[in-house]
């Protein structure tokens, strides 16, 4: 079963790459872009048929490796 995870920086944590992307977009005449936050996306193939169990496993993976909870939040989608 494929589980998808999105890891993003927490609100309030400076995201210089997002800022640079926003400024570039503004410079390309996308003037209405007010903010960009960059994140990471994972597709994890888990050998598990029960969706609940698979998601709970991935949740554990997020806490232990995929996200650093000092600065990042994660979302299993």
């Amino acid at each position, binding site marked *: 079963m494929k589980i998808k995870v999105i890891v993003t920086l927490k609100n309030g*944590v*400076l995201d*210089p*790459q997002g800022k*640079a992307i926003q400024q570039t977009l503004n410079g390309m005449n996308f003037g209405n872009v007010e903010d960009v936050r960059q994140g990471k996306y994972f597709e994890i193939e888990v050998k598990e048929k029960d969706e609940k169990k698979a998601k709970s496993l991935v949740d554990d993976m997020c806490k232990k*490796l995929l996200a*650093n909870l*000092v*600065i990042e939040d994660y979302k299993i989608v």
Partner: protein
Amino acid sequence: MRSSVIIFPGSNCDRDMDVALKKFGFKNQMVWHNDLSIPKSDLIVLPGGFSYGDYLRCGSIASKSKIIKSVIDFANSGGLVLGICNGFQILTETGLLKGILQQNKFLNFICSNVFVKVKDKQNKYFKDLKKDVLKLHIAHNEGNYFCSDDELKSLEDNNQIAVTYCGEDGIENETNNPNGAIKNIAGIFNNSKNVLGMMPHPERMIDKYLSGEDGSLFFKNILDNFK
């Protein structure tokens, strides 16, 4: 004093560290990351570099490598663990040190000499150090130290801030902050101050003709405090 330098795939300051340690009389051994135990040591060093290609987050993969359990056990039993640059990043990812090293504020790789102020001398690394400001070298893309307000307060309250970026005169301000690190932090201790992580490379300042000798002071001081 016996030391061990851990080599991860992608470490690139391991041999410089070996040269530096041996120069001042440490009996140093190199330890591969896939080993499960560390030879009897008084100091373990996690060197600089790009362990595992900085995949996922700097230091995150190394912080789960086979050797790390031994490093954590050693640290928890009071042993001296020094992480330089990528080693500092690995230490934060293991949880031995608080916070995280984020990408530099202006998105640039910085390679330059800097001055750092020694903020605490009640520890086995800086006790009785003759200087308060050291000239050291930094080379990193992710050195922008960040932690939560609560963590910062506890670092300050327990004097766990080890070194901060400053001017030659010791003044810490935004101009002297190369990477945007919170409170100009260049290095911190754990609670009991046996674990030290810092971005500057003392092993690059051990020769007066090539670079400078403030790194020599640092290594000699560790030895003097061990005697």
